[in-house]
């Protein structure tokens, strides 16, 4: 069974493409895509109606932030809006006429307007956060002046306006890059979907060819279902365990994305991950009538699996119904578990929920697959016996047909 399945995998160009080209080329493409990790030098335009030393100082500080590049200085908002529409810039900062006078007024509040292109959230995040930091800093100077005017001595004023000093630290990924965050989830997704897809495709091929695999003698008895599933499962497991070791163990190190997890834990975690995906796919494969339908399945499920798992969109925001459904998909547990171990340095014990859930899914889908196998066997048997009866009847009717002219 095992050798047979391996032979099938390697003789079907479709599965070779998906299993090996897909799973090995995709990670490198994604790494290349997110190579810079961050969006730097977002071009912006300045509309400064106040033309004051204060606004210039603000801009000077802002331009020093890595996120921002002041590409144009415009005389009016109309001009800047045109640049934005032409996608030459992704943001506009606007200082009203009274910016400096409001700052000078001890009771005044000065306003700055920041317009962000919303075609990607990363523009907004970069512009807004850097602008906010500059604002807080210049605000402090103003505050010190104002306190001094009130007769507070300079040193105390300085002490006073310092933000409750806080050390903010990003845990686990010092650069806070987009790739560092997304690539681990993508690696798990690539393994999950190529395996899922490959198995469904082969299941379709089996149906189409009415192959031997579907008609092994004695398959209707339970032990044979076990044997078949173990054999086929083992073939996929050997290939995919190796691929998973490369993708989840080696590539994070090669790509220099965060990898603080113990390699042993990752390898142990991969066992239920790969097994659960195999049996999940074998179960779904029972419904696949031919190879082509599996493609539609792959495409429509990939994005749904990605979002339902709550990686890029936090799991706390997923409506309950969808969240419960997501518990049935191995990707949900596998992606979170891998991120916890690999990117956050959790131990296997800390990830026990995900680890045990994957074993649970393995058991669930294995039992389901066995049951479906047995049911399919009975159906086949019934159909065959019906066919046999039918052909018997055919033969009889043909015989009687033959008999009639003979009589006449």
């Amino acid at each position, binding site marked *: 069974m095992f050798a047979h399945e391996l032979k099938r995998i390697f003789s079907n160009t479709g599965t070779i493409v998906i299993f090996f080209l897909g799973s090995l080329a995709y990670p490198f493409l994604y790494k290349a895509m997110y190579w810079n990790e961050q969006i730097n030098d977002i071009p912006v335009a300045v509309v400064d109606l106040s033309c004051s030393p204060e606004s210039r100082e603000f801009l000077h500080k802002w331009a020093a932030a890595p996120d921002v590049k002041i590409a144009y200085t415009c005389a009016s908002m109309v001009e800047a809006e045109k640049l934005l529409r032409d996608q030459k810039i992704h943001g506009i900062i606007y200082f009203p006429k009274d910016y400096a006078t409001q700052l000078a007024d001890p009771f005044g509040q000065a306003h700055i307007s920041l317009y962000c292109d919303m075609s990607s959230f990363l523009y907004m995040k970069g512009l807004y956060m850097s602008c906010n930091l500059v604002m807080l800093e210049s605000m402090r100077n103003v505050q010190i002046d104002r306190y001094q005017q009130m007769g507070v001595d300079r040193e105390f004023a300085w002490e006073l306006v310092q933000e409750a000093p806080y050390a903010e630290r*990003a845990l686990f990924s010092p650069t806070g890059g987009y790739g560092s965050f997304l690539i681990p989830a993508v690696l798990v997704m690539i393994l999950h979907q190529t395996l899922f897809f490959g198995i469904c495709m082969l299941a379709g091929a089996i149906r189409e060819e009415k192959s031997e695999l579907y008609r092994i003698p004695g398959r209707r008895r339970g032990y044979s279902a076990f044997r078949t599933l173990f054999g086929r499962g083992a073939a996929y497991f050997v290939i995919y365990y190796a691929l998973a070791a490369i993708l989840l163990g080696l590539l994070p190190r090669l790509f220099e994305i965060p990898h603080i997890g113990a390699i042993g834990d990752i390898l142990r975690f991969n066992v239920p991950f790969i097994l659960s995906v195999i049996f999940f796919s074998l179960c779904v494969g029972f419904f696949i009538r031919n190879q082509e339908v599996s493609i539609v399945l792959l495409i429509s499920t990939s994005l749904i699996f990605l979002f339902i798992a709550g990686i890029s969109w936090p799991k706390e925001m997923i409506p309950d119904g969808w969240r419960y459904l997501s518990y049935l998909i191995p990707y949900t547990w596998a992606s979170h578990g891998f991120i916890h171990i690999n990117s956050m340095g959790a131990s296997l014990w800390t990830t026990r929920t995900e680890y045990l859930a994957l074993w649970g899914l393995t058991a669930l889908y294995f039992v389901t697959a066995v049951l479906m196998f047995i049911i399919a066997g009975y159906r086949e048997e019934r159909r065959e016996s019906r066919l046999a009866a039918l052909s018997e009847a055919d033969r009889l009717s043909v015989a009687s047909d033959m008999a009639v002219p003979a009589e006449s």
Partner: protein
Amino acid sequence: MKEIFLNIWNVLQRELRRMVSRPLYLTASVGAFLFSMFFFMTLMQRGAAEMMPVAVVDLDQTSISRRLIHEMQATPSVDILLVTSSYQEARQAMQEGRIYGIFVIPSDFYRHLVSFKRPRVDFYMTNAYTVGGNTAYKQMMTMANLVSGAFQREVLRKKGMTDDVIMHRIQPVSIEGHMIANPWGNYMIYLVSIVLPGILGVIALILTVFVVGFELKARTSKEWLNAAGGNYTVAMIGKLLPYTVIYQTLGVVCYMMLFTVAGFPVLGSHWRLLFGLLLFIMAMEMMGIVLIGCMPRLRDALSIGALYSMLGFSLSGFTYPNMGMLPFVRAISWIEPLRHYYLIYVNEALMGAPFINSLPTAMALVAFTIPALFVAPRLHHALKYQNYPIN
């Protein structure tokens, strides 16, 4: 001329019969699309992430620190899941994925506060989850400001100032953020507006590969070509026309859901956006022809088609902008029709830009016909002589 239309009509009738007799693929695709639509529309009922659970580590354990924690818990934009006195416990909760940030009140907090020294706090957010971590970060900034604001207020009150006067001193500069065409900072708007048309495009590509490839696989391509009077172009038009109509209808349904029912903004022209969608779908069909033309074996073309079209989602740049990609990756993104559709979407829906801005991208979508013309002789040959491996 009349003959051409007659032949197109012939092929079209034949295709409709085939569609009805083998309804599986079309219903599977339409079903998959409608399900995706339902999924994404219901998934993000709350379009903006506002609160993420965080932990507070109280190393100070005094009445002041506890009062501060109460004050934070009462703040509506803050969600404190766990209050503990051990940093280890909080860190473990983070590794288990239960919280996205840790806010630490140090052990000398009370001592500093009573001696009019600035109290300090530390906070940590996870970068392993971007949206969750960022939201937690914003939230903890609020919490830190609560600390410093409370401190300034206490000191100034002791100096005999009123709260009103104090406020102007605490906040002398404000930034008004304007999020163009998406004032709610709604994550769903730009995500769903691209993902759903994207799925539709992928289905268009895959089904095109399939309906052409299946004629090759089942060796019925000669019959198809005969129905078209031996004319390759007529055969293609007649075959793809009914599907294109179906996709565009689905596109319009999806569009109505997004822009009228869900109320997503469109600053520019609805018609031009829909026309852009049609061009996008046709470009995907052209790429389908290219794939089956290069790889007449159905499952090879389908596998490559799946890998190619799925890349479009990331390469289009609606999550991670193209300007941050390596130049060669940016070049690859041009061969993904979704990239061009995204640009039209930005121009029309978000920017309300004049038509001239979308023209180059629209032309680029039309240009996907060129590679399809290149494979035409080869594919025509294959249809006519059926000289290729099936399995």
